[in-house]
């Protein structure tokens, strides 16, 4: 008989090798799959690394993948901390990007140093509101936030498409419907060869860490997530707190949208997320909702994504296959979480003595 038992306490000493083992196991299984596809695993891994980190250009690409990934992972982390299980990162990214785009298109006369902060604020507002809506429905009508946030992703993306084909269509481009390109003052400048989004991501990493561990708000968020009854007992104003935390979480995802639209696409399209929103959720769980580990795993995943994308060019491996490799590695790392927190006991049925 097999039974699953929760471990009483997990020490760091127990945890570290397991996480190392998990990554190793993931690489081994990944290697088997690569073999199955008829390639040399070592060569593939080497290409992944060099594709992601081998040149100045590829390093910049990797960082540019990491930026939205990290910001959105921090955003959902705030939501998850209060047990608001949102999978609405994508939608919040798009609505944030949409708000920023509105500013970019309508106030393009403003100089960059004023316009860009305005766009940033607008994106926070957009993403925040898009997350506030399901939170409001949850506290008022006890709806399931996971379902609602998932639906709102589709609503957001379809709405962007609508804008693209309808009201925001660039009249100067004939034939293909697009939203107008941003003017130069609405595009994030490069700093040290990479768009300035990395500075924003770094700042948000510090701010989120401080907020969660050093502020009254962070303390209240932790208590609310761990035991809502105690939060009520202490008079934290749990409804307001829920709304505030979800607004912040959504707001962060909105910022990722602003960065993608402004720095990467220089416009708004229905594909600026590159599915990074869902990957960010994986990263948040891998980092166990702690900002620094999230940044670490975020980098790992960014390397993986960037390196796998490069495989197509360097080794002619189709990007579907690259995706499979990527997914298997992520799956194994998440799965290790289970083995870190639970142990499996094997026993014959009916056996009493051991």
């Amino acid at each position, binding site marked *: 008989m097999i*039974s699953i*038992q929760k471990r*009483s*306490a997990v020490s760091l000493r127990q945890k570290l090798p397991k996480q190392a083992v998990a990554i190793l196991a993931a690489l081994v299984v990944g290697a088997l799959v690569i073999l199955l596809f008829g390639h040399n695993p070592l060569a593939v891994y080497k290409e992944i690394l060099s594709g992601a980190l081998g040149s100045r250009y590829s390093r910049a690409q990797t960082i540019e993948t990491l930026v939205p990934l990290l910001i959105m992972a921090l955003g959902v982390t705030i939501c998850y901390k209060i047990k608001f299980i949102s999978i609405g990162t994508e939608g919040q990214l798009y609505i944030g990007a949409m708000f920023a785009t509105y500013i970019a298109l309508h106030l393009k006369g403003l100089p960059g140093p004023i316009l860009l902060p305005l766009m940033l604020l607008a994106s926070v507002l957009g993403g925040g509101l898009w997350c506030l809506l399901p939170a409001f429905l949850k506290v008022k009508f006890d709806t399931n936030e996971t379902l609602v946030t998932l639906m709102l992703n589709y609503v957001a993306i379809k709405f962007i498409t609508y804008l693209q084909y309808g009201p925001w269509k660039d009249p100067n481009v004939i034939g293909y419907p697009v939203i107008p390109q941003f003017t130069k003052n609405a595009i994030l400048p490069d700093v040290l060869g990479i768009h300035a989004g990395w500075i924003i991501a770094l700042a948000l990493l510090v701010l989120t860490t*401080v907020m969660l561990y*050093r*502020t*009254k*708000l*962070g*303390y*209240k968020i*932790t*208590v609310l997530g*761990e*035991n809502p*009854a*105690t939060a*009520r*007992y*202490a*008079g*934290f*104003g749990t409804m307001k707190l829920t709304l505030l935390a979800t607004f912040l979480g959504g707001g962060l995802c909105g910022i990722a949208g602003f960065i993608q639209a402004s720095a990467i696409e220089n416009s708004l399209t229905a594909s600026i997320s590159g599915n990074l929103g869902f990957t960010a959720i994986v990263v948040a769980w891998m980092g166990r909702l702690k900002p620094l580990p999230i940044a670490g795993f975020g980098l790992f995943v960014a390397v993986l994504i960037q390196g796998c994308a490069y495989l197509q060019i360097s080794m002619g491996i189709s990007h579907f296959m690259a995706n499979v490799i990527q997914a298997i590695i992520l799956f194994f790392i998440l799965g290790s979480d289970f083995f870190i927190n639970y142990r499996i*006991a094997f*026993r014959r049925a*009916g056996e*009493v*003595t*051991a």
Partner: protein
Amino acid sequence: MPLLTMKDICKSFSGVYANDHINLSIEEGEIHALLGENGAGKTTLVNILYGLYEADSGEIFWNGEKASFRSPADAIRAGIGMVQQHFSLVRNMTVLDNVILNLPGNAAFLKRKEAGEKFARLAAAHGLLVDPGAVVADLTVGEQQRVEILKALYRNVKLLILDEPTAVLTPQETVNLFQVLRSLAGEGYAIIIITHRLSEIMEVTDRVSILRSGRKVAELDTASTDVHELSRHMIGHDIDEMPPPDIPPREAPMLRLDSVSLERKRLAQPLHDIRFSIRKGEILGVAGVEGNGQKELAEVICGIRRHTSGTIFLEDADISHLGVRPRYEAGIAYISDDRQGDGLVPDMNITENLALRAYGKPPMARHGLVDARAMSKVAAEKTQEYQVLASGRSGAATPVRLLSGGNQQKLIIARELEEGGKLIVACQPTRGLDIGASEFVHQKLRAWRDAGKSVLLISADLEEIRMLSDRVAVLFGGRVVGVLTREEASVQALGLLMGGVTAAAAEGAGA
């Protein structure tokens, strides 16, 4: 041959022994008590027996054969059942479904009819009355406990472990439980019971094992011992009789409830037209069978629930419209009776739990930032003063779910008895505390009162109420059915009121 023998059981948590070479043996038909201070290792010992913990060393013999239980399923299969300090029922399932949940013999389709018959037989045979069709969430704590016992009996256990079963029971329910236990013992069941109440040990058990700091210091025949000897073994000295309160309360009221009602749909127990006042320097006891509005009353006073009509005054100021936080700032503190439910955050550590009230003010916080060092300092002082015992090296960084039940309780009390408070609503403040710690808390409440502050003491323990209170109010069906002075509050008088028999009704019946 004893039914169960535990030999040289050792268990340590991060280097500190919770069980240190403990020996225990139990015969069929024996009721055996485990007694000891908070954190002495009682729960740990029974958890090892029940397969929840693995002993570091030592042996268990069951029916004379060496056994090791690696999970509760193992223990149950062998014939050992346990009713834990915190119940493990599925709240929104029916009683019957809870009982047959996860039975080894369950096929894909449940045979509810058959199960229902067996359930009814067991319930009737042992006087454990519960409605098998009721949903667990709607049951009183006493009824839930009966379900837990039935669940064990249904699985044909031979040994039943009860961890502080009476802590949550009313006096009447305790009497019933003891009848059940005696009848079970009469049929050959063995029973291990943990309790802090010496009188209960004297009343129902055959033998007593006393633990102190993880060691077994004595095993006695109940028939040939008395409470004084028990307490000497347990805390090293005799219990002190408490002096009666001396300083009379002042005249000025601290808290006044003026026809306060709480009447909403889907409320377990509404409150109707509550009027009473607590003076400064007074302890007002609230007696009543649990579930007659105690929790609701406490929460209405603290602002966790908003009353639907009437007015609440604190020192003549209307606080009806204030929320929890402002009421706390105004001086109302609250010792909750549900430590895992709302009193504590089990997965956060001692320091963080102690900060729950004061986290927002200097010295703990400045300009929105919290000061971890200041928090730790407060935690160190409080755990020292209230003797909150955390095992192992992690000290104040220990998650509170790893503390023993009594130590969790001390933590809530340490947090709520703050300098600036005026009124403390104390719900079952000594539930689960050993006699030494209970005495300490009683002293604290008295000192609080003697400083001109007030206490609303809600307790199921009539002895405690009578010992501490200046006056006693009795709750029945969400109403205050009487307020007695200290002299009037005899056990009989309180008992009648708690059963809903008011003076007027009694006279009516007599006439």
